[in-house]
């Protein structure tokens, strides 16, 4: 019964935020498992990511360069896309937003985080739902910080808690079409995306990177720093036939950092 469960031949998968980190690993894995992959990103790593996926899997992904917070840009960019069976929405933005720091840039970061992580996810979902057949899959990248939070991360924690709320509501709405909607909650992954803030906390508090990192690592049941490829299984599971009756759920791939 399970031998074909993890093949995605003939399926169209769109990975938003797929040019680096977790998104890139997920896009690559879907290509290896037979899916027709489209990678959407707005950084200069897109070309290189597409070539790497093509080299490894023998399938050349379609590329879309687009800023998901630009409503018109997004509408136009997705126009040529046909059916999407699997949407992985992974695009995100992370900065520290200390409440007590009066600098103007903190407020701009807060707004940008909400804009990319929540509004961007909403816009993409709205566009894709219209071209998703019954039985489709929507998978968001949330975070362990969608369930708890640390100091100076109020912007990011707001956005990821919010994303999970949105996911739960969408799962209720799209169930009639047998579209499942779920979220993967990665722990701290060894990517520039996350390491940036850890470095900043280390600088500001005069502690070492490892010392700050240990705040998280000490919470993990399984030790060590997660790599982007470690998270991929969660997405493959939600997209697969194995998860056909799983909807409105969060799956923590965090080595036991947060236990709900």
């Amino acid at each position: 019964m399970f031998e074909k469960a993890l093949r995605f031949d003939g399926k169209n998968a769109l990975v938003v935020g797929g040019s680096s980190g977790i998104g890139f690993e997920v896009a690559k894995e879907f290509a290896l498992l037979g899916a027709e992959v489209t990678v959407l990103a707005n950084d200069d790593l897109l070309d290189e990511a597409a070539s790497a996926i093509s080299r490894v899997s023998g399938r050349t992904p379609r590329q879309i360069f687009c800023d998901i917070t630009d409503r018109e840009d997004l509408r136009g960019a997705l126009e040529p896309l046909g059916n999407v069976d699997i949407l992985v929405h992974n695009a995100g933005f992370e900065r520290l937003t200390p409440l007590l720091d009066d600098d103007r840039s903190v407020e701009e970061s807060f707004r940008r985080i909400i804009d990319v992580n929540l509004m961007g996810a909403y816009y993409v979902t709205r566009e894709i739902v219209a071209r998703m057949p019954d039985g489709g899959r929507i998978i968001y990248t949330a975070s362990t910080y969608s369930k708890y939070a640390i100091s100076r991360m109020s912007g990011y924690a707001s956005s990821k808690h919010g994303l999970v709320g949105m996911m739960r509501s969408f799962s209720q709405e799209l169930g009639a079409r047998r579209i499942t909607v779920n979220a993967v909650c990665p722990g701290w992954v060894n990517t520039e995306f996350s390491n940036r803030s850890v470095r900043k906390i280390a600088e500001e508090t005069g502690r070492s990177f490892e010392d700050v990192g240990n705040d998280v690592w000490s919470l993990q049941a399984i030790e060590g720093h997660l790599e982007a490829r470690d998270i991929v299984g969660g997405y493959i599971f939600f997209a697969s036939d194995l998860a056909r009756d799983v909807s409105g759920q969060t799956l923590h791939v965090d080595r036991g950092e947060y236990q709900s």
Partner: protein
Amino acid sequence: MSEITIDFSGQTVLLTGGSTGIGYGIATAFAKANADLHIVALEEGLEDAVARLDRIGASKVTGHACDITDKARVEEVAATIGAVDVLINNAGLEIITPIDDPSDETEAIFRRIIDINIVGTYLVTRAVLRNMSAGGRIILTASVWGKSAIGEFSAYIASKHANIGFMRSIARELGPRGIRVNCVCPGWVQTGAGMKSLRNMSLRQERPEEDILAEVMATQCMPGLQQPDDVADLYVFLASSQARNITGQAINVDRGEFLG
């Protein structure tokens, strides 16, 4: 109440969205408890609400017309009020936003909900915090939909989950300064906004309002639709010294609708 007396004489309480619904219930409770009360709300109905609260006669009540997404006005109001002991972030917008409604209007409503409920709450908190010393308390109105979801309210549900994430992060951040931060999560309450949502659900589902309401009431451990006064007491408790060791929590007042 019990023999424990709760009295806010000499304490300044700033409440947003205090002229109607749950906010007016909270205002009434704090006015009765002798607080020096500042109501920050949209102009419509504010003067009348302040006059009615003033007639309770126990405390001084001042109204400040303000759209909390207007940063300049928020800072002006915060500066006028000065030192604040208790901040209650209650202002919020709740409107239905079905994902399959393709209108630009629905998208504009989605953005507005995120803007008021998340960014507005952030702007008020940041501005007021400059004038809050050790012993201060911050309470946010979240919702049972900050922990659970129904379909067609994705924007509101995302924003309420986000309020809880925000609270969790700033509770960590402000704990060392002796400031407590918590969320109140009301269930269904008989307010204008709540009843409007019920009407919209009834229209969308083509079912009578009474049926939908009966279905919701059936999920509560205790029967009956709550009134604003029913939920207001939890705010009073969380602001009181009785709750001096309670921070970082999201507490339901929902007659046992959502157990978690």
